[in-house]
């Protein structure tokens, strides 16, 4: 079945360091979305990537979609304590549903 894996599962960084999480799908995706979930909260949509090789930026966050549309990454430059949370990728294959990755939990040490 469809699988979307993320690495690493956990990441601890000092405030100001960079952070990257990687997402890999077993099948080609039509698009990929990224979500952030704060502790005790619900996932909140960050961005959607559709095109092969697409790169999008949101302030200190950079999102990439692989050329084969089977992998993606989220990079945060100069992390802040407000970046704490779990980051999920979610891949769409069928057009109706998303398969969520396992998530990367980010801890930022002040």
């Amino acid at each position, binding site marked *: 079945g469809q699988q979307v894996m993320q690495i690493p599962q956990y990441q601890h960084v000092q405030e100001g360091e960079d952070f990257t999480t990687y997402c890999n799908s077993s099948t080609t995706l039509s698009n990929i979305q990224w979500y952030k979930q704060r502790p005790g909260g*619900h*996932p*909140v949509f960050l961005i959607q990537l559709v095109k092969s090789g697409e790169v999008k930026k949101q302030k200190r966050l950079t999102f990439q979609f692989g050329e084969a549309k089977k992998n993606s990454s989220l990079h945060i430059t100069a992390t802040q304590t407000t970046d704490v949370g779990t980051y999920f990728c979610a891949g769409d294959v069928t057009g109706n549903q998303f398969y*969520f990755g396992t998530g990367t939990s980010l801890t930022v040490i002040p």
Partner: protein
Amino acid sequence: NAGVTQTPKFRILKIGQSMTLQCTQDMNHNYMYWYRQDPGMGLKLIYYSVGAGITDKGEVPNGYNVSRSTTEDFPLRLELAAPSQTSVYFCASSSQGGQSPLHFGNGTRLTVT
């Protein structure tokens, strides 16, 4: 707008009991979803609906049932609750299925003992 509203926020069930998790959205979205999230894990799709009167199974449908009689409401029914159903349940909606963002409710934390 309220967005996606889930009730209850917390519930404790005994093994074998039944309950319905309520979900309603006021954004006129056709697509609605139920996910479960186990501690330290990602979200697994239980059931989804592409419109009123239409439902389909996701990755982990066993032990659950859904209905979609209106665009706004998408309740999730647990029959014969089991400890394996202890989880946080999220309802979500989107306007264009896999082509648009998911809007999540605040979740229901369910414990089955």
